């Protein structure tokens, strides 16, 4: 053997390899403030075109809630050069797909297109940004669409009011006290002028990130971006809402009577924002408690005690604050009080006993798999790049954020369980059938 160390050095090299191929991207700002991120991946002739407007329900005023989500709908009504209904028709008849979504912090539009239709997608997004059609016909149409969406997805869904009920108790000052669907009374009362003002204020290049990923030629793409976006005038500087919210200051417990048959309990613990260093340990704590059939809640409540039909938890992390939500649906005669007490017991174990190496490794494996799979499509990459830029100020976290999870130690998970998952920091909602009222 010429080099006895070759085998060893190869092993070392493979252990030091990055988790996956780096997502390469370039970014720049147009003079009007539009931030642009481009990622080239020519594997498949597909392109994802997305625009993230940094406006969500937290940018609304208390008497006009639901505006950002309403705009998610309204800005499909057409533009000066795109007729009513044509947004969908143009994209779909050209082999593409499109959608949009709204959160507490953003409104996000995207098209997935055959890559030879990139210019079409850019033209359409620029039309939306420059001169979307905001008129009484469109407002009246979309108001009914949004009302129907609320009836279908909130009013007619068991438990679906829980976010509204949770957030209005978990927050007293911050605009997170209402949720994106907002109030239908506010939408009814809003005038056309108010909608136009909201558009001019927030759906402007200096409040937007254009993120494109897929089968593109960088120079051609820049040329199209200049052609369609450069002349869109910047809006006024966007005023951001205050992040202030005092601590909860004591446990809040309430009962909601809903159109349900199976009682459930929802516990929401106030926690930090998604960009806070503790967010990573909280995510791993959540994985330990609730991710998969081998998680602690599931093993205890579904398998062993058989008190719950289903148990789940997720850290609902937003730009300014977060709520760690744990929930359980009762099995048989189990009461919601019992479910809450059992979840508390499992939380207490997390607080008082250190994690074993084996369980900690499992958490890290799960987190790594989840992280890697987020970049499995060009659509996912475009969205992740935009989110990391807007919320974290660093699009390269698309590659490097996993290191922040790897810095988390078992003791950190124990610490965040102690710090955040305590009774005085939570809202507990007991969901009971209306017949029990």
């Amino acid at each position, binding site marked *: 053997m010429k080099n006895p160390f070759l085998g060893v050095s190869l092993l070392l090299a493979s252990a030091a390899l990055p988790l996956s*191929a780096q997502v390469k991207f370039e970014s720049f700002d147009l003079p009007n403030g539009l931030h642009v991120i481009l990622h080239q991946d020519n594997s498949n002739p597909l392109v994802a075109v997305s625009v993230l407007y940094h406006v969500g329900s937290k940018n609304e005023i208390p008497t006009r809630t639901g505006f950002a989500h309403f705009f998610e709908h309204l800005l499909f009504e057409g533009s000066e050069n795109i007729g009513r209904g044509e947004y969908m028709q143009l994209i779909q008849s050209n082999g593409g797909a499109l959608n949009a*979504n709204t959160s507490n912090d953003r409104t996000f539009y995207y098209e997935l297109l*055959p890559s030879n*239709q990139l210019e079409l997608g850019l*033209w359409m997004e620029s039309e939306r940004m420059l001169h979307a059609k905001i008129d009484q016909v469109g407002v009246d149409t979309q108001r009914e669409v949004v009302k129907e969406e609320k009836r279908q997805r909130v009013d007619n869904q068991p438990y679906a009011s829980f976010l509204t009920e949770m957030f209005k108790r978990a927050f007293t000052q911050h605009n997170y006290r209402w949720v994106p669907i907002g109030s239908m009374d506010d939408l009814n009362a809003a005038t056309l002028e108010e909608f136009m003002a909201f558009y001019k204020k927030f759906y402007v290049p200096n409040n937007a990130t254009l993120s494109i990923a897929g089968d593109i030629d960088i120079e051609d793409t820049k040329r199209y971006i200049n052609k369609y976006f450069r002349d869109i005038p910047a809006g006024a500087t966007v005023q951001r809402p205050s992040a202030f919210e005092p601590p909860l200051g004591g446990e809040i417990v309430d009962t909601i009577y809903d159109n349900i048959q199976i009682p459930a309990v929802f516990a929401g613990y106030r926690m930090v924002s998604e960009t806070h260093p503790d967010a990573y340990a909280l995510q791993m704590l959540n994985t330990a408690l609730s991710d998969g059939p081998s998680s602690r809640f599931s093993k205890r409540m579904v398998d062993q005690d058989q008190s719950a039909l289903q148990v*789940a938890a997720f850290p609902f992390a937003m730009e300014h604050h977060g709520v760690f939500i744990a929930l359980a649906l009762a099995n048989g005669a189990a009461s919601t009080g019992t479910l809450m007490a059992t979840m508390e017991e499992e939380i207490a174990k997390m607080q008082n006993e250190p994690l074993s190496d084996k369980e900690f490794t499992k958490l890290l494996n799960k987190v790594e*798999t989840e992280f890697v799979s987020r970049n499995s*499509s060009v659509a996912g990459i475009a969205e992740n790049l935009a989110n990391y830029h807007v919320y974290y100020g660093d699009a390269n976290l698309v590659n490097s954020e996993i290191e922040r999870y790897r810095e988390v130690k078992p003791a950190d998970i124990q610490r965040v369980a102690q710090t955040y998952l305590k009774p005085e920091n939570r809202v507990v909602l007991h969901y009971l059938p209306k017949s029990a009222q």
Partner: protein
Amino acid sequence: MNKILLALSLVASAAAHAQLDRSIRPTAAPARTPTIAQYQKFQLQNGLTVLLVEDHKLPSACSESCSMKAPRPTAKRLLTKRWTLSEPV
């Protein structure tokens, strides 16, 4: 003469700064032929046919029925879903 030059240069500069005619819809560029996958095919001694596709984009591997994208738990997806125009398929 100067006037003519001035007029010419005005025409030229107007052309250079011509407003984009936004009513003109972009047309499709030539379509690319997709290469779905390069694969190897071989048989084991026991007759089992193996199809192998190399793709090093993600550090994951899977056999026939699995998806490269890890599914998220359904309850979590339902509960954290953001408001969308239509139900995601």
